[in-house]
Structures are given as C-alpha cells and as structure tokens.
C-alpha cells in the first residue's frame, strides 16, 4: 500500500511498478487519515485487505507520516506491520524521529525513475522475498 499525497508520485510509482511488474496490486491513499482508516479497516475501507507493506510519505495532509506511524505502532493488531517511510526530507531529525517511532526503514525518495526502480526493486526483494513477516490476521 502506498500513502502519498502527490498525484504525480502515485502516477510515476504506479508506472514504474507496472512496467517492471512489481507490487501489481498496489493500493494508494492520499492523506494520513485515510492511511490510518485503511490500515485499521475503518469507514469505506472496512473490507480491504491488510497490506503486506506500507510505503508512507513523510509529509502528508491531515496526519503526517510520523503520526500515522505512531498510531499504527500503538495499535495491538497492526503494530507489526512493516512500514517504510519514503520522504523527500533527509532531515536528520525526521530520520531520528521515525526510527524512534519504530519505522522499519527510512528511505529518501529517489530523484529519478531509474533510481526509483532500483529502490523499489530492493524493497520488494528484501521485504517480500528475504524478510520473514508475521502471518496476516
């Protein structure tokens, strides 16, 4: 699942993922509140599946990435969910705060399509092929 407010980022991300056939069932929401609702299966997201992995933008409307992270980590059912922050920010403070809130990984957004592909490829390989994740409820 992708949490990203930028329409362009979603378009580019989806293009890259589609082109290289990664995460073909990627769902996307546009703000922090929707992200929390989605993960917790609230409101219109009551019937969605819990995502394998969350790609979370840091700067988001309504609730920012850090708040979403903390909320998910505080929820007993979903605290285990792998969350990767994808941020344009490389501010040391943001990075520190994120790891402090138990983010699984903090990645600065790749600046072009090639490196985006490389990054996503690595993420997919690691989290879906290498890392052992808890089974979904």
């Amino acid at each position, binding site marked *: 699942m992708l949490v990203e407010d930028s329409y*362009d*980022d979603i378009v*580019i991300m989806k293009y890259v993922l589609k082109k290289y056939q990664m995460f073909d069932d990627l769902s996307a929401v546009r703000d922090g509140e929707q992200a929390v609702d989605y993960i917790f299966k609230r409101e219109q997201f009551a019937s969605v599946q819990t995502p394998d992995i969350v790609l979370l933008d840091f700067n988001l409307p309504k609730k920012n990435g850090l708040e979403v992270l903390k909320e998910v980590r505080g929820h007993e059912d979903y605290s285990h969910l792998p969350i990767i922050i994808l941020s*344009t*920010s490389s501010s040391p403070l943001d990075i520190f705060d994120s790891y402090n809130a138990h983010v699984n990984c903090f990645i600065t*957004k790749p*600046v*072009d*399509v090639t490196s985006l592909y490389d990054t996503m490829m690595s993420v997919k390989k690691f989290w879906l092929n290498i890392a052992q994740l808890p089974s979904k409820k």
Partner: protein
Amino acid sequence: MRAEEQNVRQLERTVAHYQARIADLETKLNEYESKRSSTKEGPITAQKSYQIEYAFYPRAVISVTGEILQANKRFQSLIGSINQIIGKPIDLFIPNLSYQRPKGLGQESDSVKFHKHTGLTARTIDNVHLPIEAGLTFISTKTDYDIVVTVLNISNRIEIEKSLRQTIERLDLSLSLGNIGVWDWDVTNNVLLWDDSMYDLYGIDKAKFSQAFDAWTVTIHPDDKEAAEAAVQTALDGGPAFNHEFRIITGSGNVKHIHARANVVIDKASKTSRMVGVNHDITKEKVAYSRLLYSERQLEAFFDLAPIGLARNHMDGKFIDTNSEFERFTGYTTDELNELSYWDLTPIEYEEQETIQLQSLDKTGKYGPYKKEYIHKSGHRYPVLLHGQIIQSLDGEDNIWSTVLDLTEIDNTNKKLSRSLEQLTQTNDELKRFAYVASHDLQEPLRVITSYLQLLMMNSKDALDDQSNEYITRAQEASTRMRSLIVDLLSFSRVDDKGLVLSNVDLNQLLSSVVEDLSIVIQQTKAELHITEELPIIQADAGQLQSVFLNILSNAMKFQSADNKPIITVSHTESKSGHEISISDNGIGIDEKYHDRIFDIFQRLHTRDEYSGTGIGLSIVKKVINMHGGSIRFVSELNQGTTFIITLPKNPAFD
C-alpha cells in the same frame, strides 16, 4: 642709588643753591645799605644797625667777639625774645659756631663772603635743641667787622626728608610690585620725562628716547592711539582728568595694556602747563579678565546650546536658571519656570524616590543619575534622566545644578531598535528556514519533472523524431543542473543552520578522506597532489572543513585548461596566532577583476559549457572558514594558477 633718591638729592641741591643765592642777595642788600648810610648818613658807628628785619630767614648780627648785637623777628621766634638774647654770646645759643673770619678773607668792606656751616644745633631759650644750618657773612666796619648769622632751621626739612624717604621706599616698593612708571610732561616746552620704570614698562632704551610727546604716542597701539591722544587733549583743555586705558607696543614688540592717570599742573606765573602722571601695566589683569570674559561667554553659549537640559534650583526646588533645551522639553518659558519648582514637574508617585535623591544630595552634595518622569506643560508625561550636584552661588547660597536629559527620543529609538532587532532576528530565522524549505520543496516538483521526462523517454522514444528526443534530453540536463543547484543551496543554508560541531580534527586525515572522495576525478584528470608539510590538528567542525577542502580541491582540478595535468600543492605554516594553509594549483587562474566576487553566492565566472558548477562552492568555503573565526584569501595569475590561503586561529572565537 635709586632714581627717586637721586631726584630728592637733586632737589636738595637746588634748594641749597637758592638759599645761598637768597643769602647772597640779602648780604648784597646789607652791603648796599651800609654803603648808603656811610655816604649819606655819615660815618658808621660801631653799633650800627643792619637791615635784617625783612629777611626771609632767622637772622642775627653778632660782633667779632660773638656778642649778639641784633636779631630779626624770625630769629627771635626761633631762639628767644630780643631782651633775652641781646648782648649775650651767640655761643650760648649756637654752640660750636665758628665765627672767626676765615684767613685770606680780606678786610676790605667789599670782601663779603657767605660761609655755610652745617651740622649745627641751636639751643633756644627754652632749651629746645633744633638742627640748623648757618650762613655767615662777614661785614667790615671801620674798626673791625660784624658778622651776620643766617640760621636755617632744618628740623622740618629733616622730618620731610624722613617722610619723603619713607614715601619713596613705599612708592618704590609699589612701583616695583605694580609695574608703575612715573612721567612728567612739560607741555609748553614739550619735554617728556620718564622715570626708569617707564623705560622698563615700555621696553625702550633711555638713550633712544627723544623726550618729546610723540616719542610716547608712537608706542601706542594704532587702534588706541587716537583715543589716548584725545584724552590727553581733553585733560589739557580743562576737561576730565586724564584717566585712560590703552595698549602699547613695547620695544620688543609685545602688546601691553596700560592704565594711565595724570594731573595737569598749570603754573600761572610762568604760564606753563605740565602733566604729571603714572602708567600702570595692567596687562596681566587685562589678560586674566579677557580670559574670564571668554570662558564666561563660552559657558553662556554652552549653557544655551547644550542639547541637554540644564537647570539651577534653590534648595527648596524653585527654578533660578534654565536653558533653552530645558524649556523646550518642559514646554514652559523662562518666566513661567521661575514661578515653578521642580516639584511642579514631578509626578506625585516619584516623591519617595525624590526624597532618596535629596538625602544623597544632603550627604554627598550630589544626586543621580536617576530616571524619572516630568509632567509637560500640556499635561503629558515623558521620561527624563537627572544628574546633579550642589554648587554654592556667589552670594553663598547653595543651589542645585542639574543636567536633565529628555529620554523621549532615546526611549522611542530604543523601542524602535529592539523592535527592528526582533524583526531582523525573525526575518533572519525565516530566511534560513526559507532557504532550507524552499530548496527542499523545490526538489519535489523537480523530481516529478525529471521522472515524467524519463517516463516520456521510456514510453515514446521510438515514436518521437530526433529533435523531440533532443528537447527531452536537454530538459533532463536542465533538471539535473537544477537539482545540483538545490543541493548546494541546501548545504549552504545548512552551514550556519546547524552551528559548528567541534572536535579535534587531524587535517592530514581529513585531507586523505577528501582525496578518497575525489579519487575518480583524480584518476580522470591524472592530478598530482603534493602535501609539503605535515598539517596540524585543530579544533574544528570536521564535516564542514571537509566541504572546504572538497570544494577547493575539486575546483583546482576542474578549472584547468584542456589536457593540462593538475598539480596541487598543500602547504602549512604556523604562527603564534594561527595556522595558514595554502592550496596552490596550476589551473587557469582567476581574473583580477573578479577578485571581490568569487566568494559571492551563485557567482560564476564561466559558462556552463566551459565549466560546470552552481557558483555556491566558494561561498560555502568562505562561510565555513568565517564561522571558524578564520579568513580566506587568494592570489592568482591568469593561466598560471591560483593559491587559496586559509587562516585559522589557534584559539578560535566561535560565533
């Protein structure tokens, strides 16, 4: 001998001369009388009578044996009445009078001589001793001779002499003390006599003084001459006595102030007039006075021009004097203030503070500086700073002198300043934040643009013609440049954003790690790097210093003419105060005219086609070095190379 004493002696001699002349004439008269009587009234008896009654001096006639034959009224009143003295020997009354006819004096009746005897004492019938002098005239008679004794009572003269001498001494003292000269001008004959003090006063050689009126007037200051001459003329014409001040120019060219006084003496008999007077050198007094006047004028001017309020008050608070500034900020006129006390200007709540200041005034004679408020005439209050002390006035009354500074402007300015400072700090913070956020946020759309351009290429490269593909490539290149601009701007804004993280930094290690970072470029350019001296270990921010060396070294390799092998030399010298690190290259050099500008942000000297870069590198270098309390300069020669010289203090005063 002093001049005055000489004058007196001269006078005495003149007097004695005339006395002798008078006695001589009287004797001649006697002689004439005796001749007349001998021819017209028959032979003279032994006891003949002499015409002595009308003589000016006491006179007696004695016989050759000293017996008093005759005495005039003056003699009688001096010695004793006629019946007490006639027939008595003169020795009784004038002991030691030698009345023997001197030898060689002929016995002829015409051989009349006057003999003066001095140092005698007369004894009166009442046994009073008088100092006298006597003149003896020997007058031949048929049988023998008679002696006319003329007595000069000099007791008065001695008194006069004594007092004169005292006067002279006193005068002399005052003359020598007071620079007073005495002059005597015979107007009729135009003879001007000066005493020695006058010559001293005027600095004129006595021998060169012509003793004419003009000899004096030429010495007078040209500006004063006319008035002085007029004052003399007025006195001569019977107007007010001469009492005049003027300046003279002395023989040595100095200006002296003279106060002169004189009286006009008119001798009716001879119809001559004289002016007798004194000159008093008042230069010192004049100079002192004019200095006093000057400083008084200065004080007056300062009092009124002072940009600070000045006030003099009675101890009870009533205003005596106030200057214009005081009147300006109180809103009152001088006259109004004279009716007021400072209590009228002081708000009631300052009473307690005021009392404390008054106690200080009592104890120490001073008060303040202390800040309070005044009430303006129009009722509003404003801040003032007071400072003052007690100064006794001429009439002995204690007054309080105060300086009062109107703080209205200063307070306003201070408020404005601190507001400006606050705004400035805020703006500065905002700017820093802005630079950071802006460059940050700029990356976002740039990333999108770059990505879309790539998507476009991936999607449609084959469908588009070559030109369109080139456009896309150029757009991508521009995006790349923009990204490096943003990255550099971000690091520039971060330099002071984060502050310095200090540690002991071994510059040798730091330099090797920079060389490692640059290894690809070094390989590409085949650059040679020489480090001639061991570099020091200094207190610095390692990360930031690294960017300094990175920028300078990469510049050194970048700004080279094609095919030139970069040779870079790093050297180090140490002085008492700091380290100097020089980095020289053999590159293209920097044109003299850009010397001021190369450290400015975004300053580029070359087109992008020649040399890449954002123009931020050296501004980051300069900022970092400055933050370390150091400085950076460079020397360069076109096409020869550039040397950057970094100076870092040993004991840096970090911002």
